[in-house]
């Protein structure tokens, strides 16, 4: 299965600033996703990162707040813009080749906004 490198692993940011999270997969994958997880909670899908086109966002998430890029099949970035303390969470990158393959997750980025 694919191996995902995600960075940074954690950051403490000032409100009003932006943070870009990078996700690198070691092999070509069909689909890449970004999830958010509050400690002790389930994973909430933010968006599907589409290669070469605009990401597809879930209800409650918008491109201006969470711009996503996927310039090729193995790399994606998620930016958390104009941060507020409510954005404090763990952000996870995920990838799959579909079919009978499961999802592989990056190690996550623990974001604290102060």
């Amino acid at each position, binding site marked *: *299965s694919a191996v995902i490198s995600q960075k940074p692993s954690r950051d403490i940011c000032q409100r009003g600033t932006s943070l870009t999270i990078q996700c690198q997969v070691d092999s070509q994958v069909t*689909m890449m*996703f970004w999830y958010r997880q509050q400690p002790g*909670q*389930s*994973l909430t*899908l933010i968006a*599907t990162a589409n290669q070469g086109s605009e990401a597809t966002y*879930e209800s409650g998430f918008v491109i201006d707040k969470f711009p996503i890029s996927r310039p090729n099949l193995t790399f994606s970035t998620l930016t958390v813009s104009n941060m507020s303390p409510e954005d404090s969470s763990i952000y*996870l990158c995920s990838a799959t080749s579909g079919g*009978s*393959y*499961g*999802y*592989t*997750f*990056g*190690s*996550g980025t623990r974001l604290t906004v102060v």
Partner: protein
Amino acid sequence: QQPVQSPQAVILREGEDAVINCSSSKALYSVHWYRQKHGEAPVFLMILLKGGEQKGHEKISASFNEKKQQSSLYLTASQLSYSGTYFCGTPVEGNLIFGKGTKLSVKP
């Protein structure tokens, strides 16, 4: 659309068995199972693609009944390493939506 998991939490002694259930109000074509240990990323356990299919991973197996729109994860002779939160995930319009999770604690 979020699948419903039960129980929310379970505490076991080493060697005991447990069952975690996952059900959906929508038609299911596949079910994923993941385990997440504290402070780590979720790890894929297995995917079930056919009705009535069973699969195994170590001493962990699962069944999937697409007619009943439910899946069950069976943990046999539990080990300390089985502790963690187990999530089922069901595809919704091509995206994987996760249940709220079942926290499993295995005590010596």
